[in-house]
């Protein structure tokens, strides 16, 4: 058991997978000579050479599509898209091609590939470089979308994604790269499509993913000190979505707050709220609340950026308001 960063967990897992399967190769902008925009691939070019760590031109559609084509012939590309914002340039190859290869041709081919990409704001990168648009991919049958929030999950989900025979969008987050956590040495792969209960509790359910799942555990721990028992669910997988786990929790607690870094209207949280209404309507003691980003092109100036993004404070406030609505006695 070692305590390592999320970045290190990704790096080590990629390296191990490359050592164990020579069909695994990395492809993306600035991943080799530059060692990755966020240094996930540091040292790998030196260790594995240009064939396994392929620097590309700035041509997202071209190199993502090339990875799909290579995957169709049995290679296992791991694509790094510098940030999820730039994935929009490859939207056609991801949505119209990678996601369709297996189904549209009647199961004769498939595209076993991992698209690693960080989302997230809060770094003063402005409107085009701070988005959380994983919903675009989570919407699409044929894709799988996972969103690890801890170093251990990063490792377990990356292993699972690489073992999977479908295209997996692997959502990372800029704010998580330096976070630390325990990662057992002999961790089995995670199961894609399963959420995790990261805190058990009985008063309220908090549901999050990626960065907001870690914020949710912080808030639960703060509330715990005041005797409030919050259950936290980390979705881990956005497609498929593990509705059973979250509905089961809400049936127990009777209320829920969803924490999401994306925009509220039509966002991931909207789907979760609908699922709770489908599966736990009779158990609800208060409306399902969503804590989500303000619906603006994210401004650069720090006070505005801070105001727009969800935080532990905003989540904490929404949880308290929901508990008040329920009539919870503190």
């Amino acid at each position, binding site marked *: 058991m070692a305590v390592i960063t999320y970045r290190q967990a990704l790096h080590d897992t990629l390296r191990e997978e490359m050592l164990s399967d020579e069909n695994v190769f990395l492809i993306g902008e600035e991943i080799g000579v530059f060692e990755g925009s966020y240094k996930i691939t540091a040292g790998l070019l030196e260790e594995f050479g240009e064939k396994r760590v392929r620097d590309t031109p700035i041509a997202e559609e071209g190199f993502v599509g090339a990875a799909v*084509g290579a995957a169709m012939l049995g290679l296992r590309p791991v694509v790094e898209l510098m940030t999820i914002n730039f994935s929009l340039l490859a939207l056609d190859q991801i949505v119209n091609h990678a996601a369709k*290869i297996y*189904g549209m041709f*009647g199961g004769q081919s498939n595209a076993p590939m991992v698209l690693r990409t960080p989302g997230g704001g809060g770094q003063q990168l402005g409107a085009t470089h701070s988005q959380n648009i994983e919903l675009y991919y989570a919407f699409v049958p044929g894709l799988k979308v996972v969103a690890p929030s801890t170093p251990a999950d990063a490792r377990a989900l990356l292993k699972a994604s690489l073992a999977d025979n479908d295209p997996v969008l692997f959502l990372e987050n800029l704010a998580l790269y330096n976070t630390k956590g325990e990662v057992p040495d002999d961790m089995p792969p995670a199961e*894609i499509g399963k959420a995790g209960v990261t805190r058990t509790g009985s008063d309220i359910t908090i549901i999050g993913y990626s960065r907001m799942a870690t914020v949710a555990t912080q808030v639960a721990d703060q509330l715990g000190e005041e005797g409030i028992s919050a259950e936290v669910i980390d979705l881990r*997988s956005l497609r498929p979505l593990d*509705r059973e786990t979250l509905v089961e929790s809400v049936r127990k607690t009777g209320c829920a707050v969803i924490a999401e870094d994306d925009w509220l209207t039509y966002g991931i949280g909207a789907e979760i709220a609908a699922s709770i209404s489908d599966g736990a309507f009779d158990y609800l003691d208060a409306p399902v609340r969503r804590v989500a980003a303000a619906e603006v092109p994210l401004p650069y100036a720090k006070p505005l950026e801070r105001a727009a993004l969800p935080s532990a404070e905003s989540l904490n406030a929404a949880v308290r308001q929901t508990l008040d609505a329920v009539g919870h006695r503190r």
Partner: protein
Amino acid sequence: MAETATRSKPAGSGSKGRRGGTRSGGSRGQQSQGKTAPRAESPETLRDYFRQMSLIRRFEERAAQGYTQAKVGGYCHLNLGEEATVVGLMSALRRSDYLFTNYREHGYAIAKGIEPGKVMAELYGRTTGTSKGLGGSMHMFDTEVGLLGGYGIVGGQIPLATGAALAIDYRGGDEVVMCQMGDGTTNIGAFHESMNIAALWNLPVVFVVINNYLGMGTTVEMSSAESELYKRAVAYRMHGERVDGNDVVAVQEAAGRLVEHARKTGEPAMLEAVSHRMKGHSVVDPAKYRNSEDAEAAREADPVAAFREQLISADVLDEDGAAEIERAVQADVDAAVAFADDSPHPDPATLFDYTYATPVANDSRRLPADPVF
């Protein structure tokens, strides 16, 4: 003789630019074939080219008929007028070579080696079709013969083909990828990104542009700043050349040369085959936007009729022999239609069979009116 643009030479030197400049060039629609037997090919090969071209012609006519009978749905784009190009290109490939095409691919599927019955069954949406009825006209696929997909998104096949060539290169295989596309497709970003990547990484892929002069109703001059499309290769230091797409032997020769060069050296290339679309963009398009001169040229250029005449005047085939081939392909197409018609429709219970290659927890299998819980 093919016009070429190479890495070393500046493009266009000596190019006659048959389609370059204005649209009403007098040479449009002319055949390059003479009265002598085409070079280098055995009589059996030439007769087989004629057979395949006739088969595609009949097949496409029956596909159109199937459409009007509502046996075929969706969009249905035909290779009518492009038979010489299709057969010439496919004759340049080995069975183990890979082919990626656009949505106008029925003829390619047949010439790459798929049974016409399977192709027709796909049009009919049956389980015996090339894609089990899940793809339709635009999305034929067969790993056995190396057809790695017809693709309905303009340009979508180009990055994929480039990636397939990357996989070949990665493993040190000796297969080659051919990536077919239309003239209009050379204006899309994926084309340019992929040409650059293929040349940069030295990947064994031959990009073939079928210049039928039209992308739906838009002409090459309306859409391409460089209307001599093969010259675009030069921007990527890639070999590019143009061939008369109505001349099956010339197409086979040019494509074969580029494919074998790619096999030997890994170098990509671009081939522009100048051809005609005899009918509308798809079977429902009356092509009212075409002027009569242009439509006439397309009719006159009929590569199947021209090749038949050529083989007869060169004594490779006599009238009886030609008629016999035509009867045989008619029978093949009849059999294909019967096969398709007799084949089962997919069972709605199989709807969720092909969403994911690896089964996964909590995968939704909900029908529209099913409750979530």
